[in-house]
């Protein structure tokens, strides 16, 4: 923090050249010195005085918006007055620079932090849950009471009976995140993961590459020659970086928006394609078909980087493996190619190597080389191979892919998508010829039941055009910072690891989702889905949560009850079963409203922390501009107080250590030592010590003290000369290394793997990607489409009175005027949206930006803002629909792996209907 240097008003001299070399060469007479302005007007000084301040702090908003924008936070008279972007960043290679970043939410925070939704003191519920009746209590009392319950549940039911959800206010603040993980390691609480939990996990990437961290910086868009914006609306959801798209367009890049709704990104695109909602796989596969038929694919790339040249048996359609031959100790992960150079069968380089033991940290996994070293694999043809069962015909994955693609001709795709076949061909050809070509993908794809198939189709499109792993090419979605400092910090006892629960599956067993399936899709489908769910557990592919009692829920920086699908049903099933609910939060929302204890957490400008987000190559400070309001504290301190209370109560009650086992290693949990363990015997004194540990031990960032970082605001990361993340950067660069250094992928075939010969994939005909018709609920014609809000981040800032004044003051939904007319609905009417499983009410906003039989709504609106406290979660009838192939295991990259392979919550794949709301 430093005082403003602004003490005197500088002369306004237009004639003089500026210090930074800006030359002003006027042909008109020189402009007068301001002091010549006559007459002197004293009121102008009042305006000048308004633009003054006492101090500036560099900080940002620790939310998961991927912006991490550097702000100057201006403090005047002891309160935060306003904020302005810090501004000047550099650029990556010759792309436009990253400045100034920021958005309206960021600029509004100075007011919102003083809003009436703010939680100022520890509260204990005195009325019914959700009633809003509280008693103000002290932190001491709150923590001791919570600690007592925590101990009771631990002793009777074990540590896994307590969950600790961490949300978007928390996960991107590195030190807060590390603190909570440390508490989780010490205590053994279940942490429901919220990647697949919110339906964001790119399972298709895990299937294809063996990992889900694909993204580069946003500046990479500028390096693309053809950029498909697919399943997202970055003009609304990536406000600080959206400029890169339009700058690329001006620079000659074809920017194509693919979206059923005409949104702010479509508006500025070179072309807009409007597939019917949920029909995108057909479009992608028709593009694949066009490129294969044109033979405009990148043969060399395919041969080296993909499984497309791998041999497959024609009889059983399984990969040809070493186990097909009479070889001693034959390996089932050794695959074959047909070498055109020698016209003979050869082992595929890099296959057959032992797999890393489970639990090996990502960055330590050794991967074989996939260099072809003289082999020239055939991609097309059929041969006979002598196996232990006799001669067998074999062909390539490429041949099978051609056949699969031929089931998706542009004409067929036109029927499904509504996009003219000629346009599909035109775009496919542009995509194949423009090098590099990119798909800027949104998370919306993962929210469809068959999102993984779409993602696999997109990766196939990128592979055959040789684009994945090229600067300006490939699919870009978010990347994750390596946790090489967070884990060492958080793992007080490495053997205790973390208990991470897959949220969709957790809710399936704890929120009666089989019931929901029965209501929505009937008995038969519900039983069918349940059969796969159980079988996956029985075969040890995914863990069993059904025997885990759920007694206590703690929520940190997450408004889980706002977004858990099925809405009120979730509150009435899972949430109401919890005996104790504790919320650590900055602001009130539905989760806190239904909690038994609410603890006040410091807001962004009242705390120390830092951010590492991959959209820009910068590390960003979160610094304290003012003292926390009321009795709010940062997350480190909150969990320290809880650990302290647990230790105190354990000593008081003389509670002996309990036995536990998370990863197959027996451990003891000693409650009396929680505080000492959490603070490393008192050596970690504050969150600043946590930050410094992380700064000292994270790879890819500059060596810096927290105070230096705070003084600068942001610092450039290492390895950011180009727009892609290099090995030196703090982010994973697996794709880059695979493509450029020929390091094998983390898949069974060590290639980009499009062919999955797992038994369940055969059963569902998903061995290769294909279009599957979206589920339609007969009699409910309206397809719901949702996306991130423009005027909020998730459920944050949604109840800000100013931002609401820039909307309609309440939740609204986009309706096509023709649909509205049929129902007698006019703009501004309240409508009821319903299907078999529920209904909710909100305002109709008529716009022809959506087509007929579509409804578009921003997600994240808190149920508190709706009648009956029921938001769109009510009609998400797919909440319990857990895709069986996403539960498959026992196969290379498949099988339960948190943040990599687990079923997404299916938030968007359903239909509904609406009518004018008749109530008041």
């Amino acid at each position, binding site marked *: 923090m430093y005082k403003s240097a602004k003490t005197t008003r500088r002369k306004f001299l237009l004639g003089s050249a500026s210090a930074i070399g800006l030359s002003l*060469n006027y042909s008109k007479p020189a402009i007068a010195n301001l002091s010549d302005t006559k007459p002197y*007007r004293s009121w102008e000084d009042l305006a000048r005085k308004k633009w003054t301040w006492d101090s500036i702090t560099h900080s940002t908003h620790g939310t998961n918006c991927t912006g991490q924008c550097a702000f100057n936070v201006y403090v005047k008279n002891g309160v935060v007055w*306003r904020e302005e972007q810090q501004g000047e960043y550099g650029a990556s290679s010759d792309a*436009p620079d990253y400045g100034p970043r920021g958005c309206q939410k960021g*600029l509004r925070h100075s007011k919102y932090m003083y809003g009436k939704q703010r939680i100022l003191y520890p509260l204990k519920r005195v009325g019914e849950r959700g009633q809003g009746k509280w008693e103000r209590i002290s932190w001491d009392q709150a923590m001791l009471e919570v600690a007592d319950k925590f101990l009771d549940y631990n002793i009777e039911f074990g540590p896994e009976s307590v969950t600790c959800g961490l949300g978007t206010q928390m996960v991107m603040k590195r030190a807060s995140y590390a603190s909570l993980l440390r508490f989780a390691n010490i205590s053994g609480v279940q942490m429901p993961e919220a990647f697949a939990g919110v339906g964001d996990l790119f399972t298709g990437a895990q299937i294809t590459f063996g990992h889900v961290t694909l993204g580069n910086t946003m500046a990479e868009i500028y390096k693309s020659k053809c950029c498909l914006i697919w399943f997202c609306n970055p003009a609304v959801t990536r406000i600080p970086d959206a400029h890169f798209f339009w700058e690329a367009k001006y620079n000659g890049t074809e920017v194509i928006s693919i979206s059923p709704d*005409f949104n702010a990104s479509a508006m500025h695109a070179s072309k807009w394609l409007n597939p019917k909602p949920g029909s995108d796989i057909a479009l992608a596969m028709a593009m694949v078909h066009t490129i294969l038929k044109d033979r405009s694919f990148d043969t060399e790339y395919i041969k080296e980087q993909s499984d497309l040249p791998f041999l497959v048996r024609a009889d059983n359609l399984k990969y040809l493996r070493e186990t097909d031959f009479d070889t001693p100790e034959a390996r089932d992960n050794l695959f074959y190619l047909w070498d055109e150079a020698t016209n003979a069968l050869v082992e595929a380089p890099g296959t057959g190597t032992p797999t890393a033991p489970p639990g090996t940290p990502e960055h330590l996994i050794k991967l074989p080389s996939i260099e072809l070293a003289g082999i020239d694999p055939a991609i097309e043809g059929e041969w006979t191979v002598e196996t232990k069962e006799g001669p067998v015909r074999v062909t390539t994955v490429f041949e099978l892919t051609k056949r699969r693609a031929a089931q998706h001709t542009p004409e067929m795709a036109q029927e499904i998508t509504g996009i003219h076949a000629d346009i599909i061909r035109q775009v496919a050809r542009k995509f194949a010829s423009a090098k590099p070509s990119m798909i800027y993908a949104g998370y919306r794809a993962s929210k469809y039941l068959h999102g993984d198939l779409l993602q696999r189709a997109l990766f196939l499109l990128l592979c055959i055009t040789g684009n994945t792993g090229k600067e300006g090419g490939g699919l870009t979605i978010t990347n994750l910072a390596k946790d090489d400092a967070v884990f060492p910090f958080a793992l007080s006892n490495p053997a205790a690891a973390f208990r991470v629960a897959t949220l969709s599956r957790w809710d399936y067993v704890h929120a009666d989702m089989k019931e929901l399936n029965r209501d929505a899709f009937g008995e038969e489908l519900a039983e069918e889905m349940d059969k796969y769910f159980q079988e996956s557990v029985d075969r040890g592919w995914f863990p069993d949560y059904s025997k885990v009692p759920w007694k206590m829920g703690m929520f940190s920086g997450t408004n889980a009850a706002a977004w858990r699908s099925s809405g009120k049903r979730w509150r009435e099933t899972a949430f109401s079963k919890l005996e104790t609910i504790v919320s650590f939060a900055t602001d009130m929302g539905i989760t806190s409203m239904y909690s038994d204890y609410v603890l006040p957490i410091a807001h962004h400008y009242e705390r120390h922390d830092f951010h590492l987000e991959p959209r820009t190559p910068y590390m960003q400070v979160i610094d304290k501009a003012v003292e926390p309001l009321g009795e709010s504290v940062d997350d480190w301190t909150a969990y320290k107080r809880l650990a302290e209370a647990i230790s105190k109560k354990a000593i008081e009650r003389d509670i002996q250590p309990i036995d536990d086992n998370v990863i197959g290693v027996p451990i003891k949990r000693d409650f009396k030592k929680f505080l000492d363990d959490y603070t490393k015997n008192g050596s970690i004194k504050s969150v600043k010590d946590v930050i410094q540990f992380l700064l000292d031990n994270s790879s890819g960032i500059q060596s810096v003290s927290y105070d230096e970082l705070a003084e600068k605001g942001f610092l450039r990361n290492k390895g950011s000369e180009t727009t892609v993340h290099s090995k030196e950067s703090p982010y994973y660069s697996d794709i880059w290394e695979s493509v450029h250094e020929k390091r094998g992928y983390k898949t069974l075939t060590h290639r980009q793997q499009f062919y999955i010969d797992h038994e369940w994939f055969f059963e569902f005909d998903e061995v290769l990607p294909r279009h599957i018709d979206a589920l339609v609920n007969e009699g409910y014609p309206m397809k719901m489409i949702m996306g991130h809000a423009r005027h909020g981040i998730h459920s944050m800032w949604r109840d800000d009175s100013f931002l609401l004044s820039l909307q309609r003051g309440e939740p609204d939904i986009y309706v096509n005027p023709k649909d509205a007319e049929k129902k007698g609905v006019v703009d501004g009417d309240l409508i009821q949206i319903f299907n078999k499983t529920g209904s909710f009410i909100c305002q109709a906003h008529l716009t022809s930006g959506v087509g007929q039989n579509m409804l578009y709504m921003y997600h994240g609106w808190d149920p508190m803002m709706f009648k009956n406290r029921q938001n769109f979660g009510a009609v998400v009838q797919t909440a319990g629909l857990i895709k069986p192939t996403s539960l498959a295991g026992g196969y290379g990259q498949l099988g339960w792996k948190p943040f990599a392979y687990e079923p997404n919550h299916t938030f968007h794949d359903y239909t509904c209907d609406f009518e004018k709301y008749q109530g008041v």
Partner: protein
Amino acid sequence: MGQVAMVMDLNKCIGCQTCTTACKSLWTDEPGQEYMLWNNVETKPGPGYPRYWEEGGGGYDANGDLNRDGLMTTKEDHGEEIPLNHDEVYFKGVEVQLQQERPMVKGSNWDEDTSSGDYPNNYHFYLPRMCNHCTKPSCLEACPVRAIYKREVDGVVLIDQDKCQGIRECNKACPYDKIYFNYVTGKSQKCIFCFPRLEEGVAPACARQCPGRLRFVGFLEDENGPIHELVYQWKVALPLHPEYGTEPNVFYVPPMLPPTFDDSGEFSDEPRVPTEYLRSLFGQEVDEALITLQFEMERKQEGKESRLMDILIAKEWKSLFNIPNVKIY
């Protein structure tokens, strides 16, 4: 005398309202200013803010005489910020649904993304608006007490808050409805082009804080600056409603939307935004401007150089601000 000016590239505006919010927190966060947005962004076509401002009259007639029949805008035409019942719902438990204390009927951005035409050939775009700091400010001419003046040094049009008597003739005279009456102080107020910042070499908040990088700030006369190039050399930056006769100093690069579809579903040559509509906003010159933009963009697509595209790309963010002694903060 110099004239400070702004060019806004509508092909980069994403309607995020960061400019609106930046202005609000700096200049209009005091009692009496709740409904004021000196800078706003509205969806076009649409009634805008205040609603139907284009029908309110003002400006000059064909003979260059002041139109005396302009309508006075009200708070209700603008819509204002309304507090929510947070306390009643969250902490007192006396109300159930979190909502505004009174229902919002219309707002400054009520028609956000309300599209015109039929899907999928519908159209809309975002139009940021502020005081145009006109060369012939009708507000100035209309003020009976000469409280409004145009600064010689930079051409910024200001209302002297000491002199203003709240007569509101300026409000009626401004055809852009960019003058607001402060119901607490009883004075008229409006955008001041952030003159205190300008004097320090810092661009106005709306421009300096625009993440879309679409606002160029500079002096019209500066032949080396992007404003001069865009307005006079390339002729792609046009004033809004030039027919109002006030000679605005805020200029717009007109929007180019993606192609429409014909009846068979193929791309059509029919522009998405009817040219007639764009002419009604920016005058006949919009035709030539769109041709130039398209031509220059195609040059880039063919791998050729284009000075115009490079200006609009503005690789270096700071290059948008061509003001004396420019600094970032």
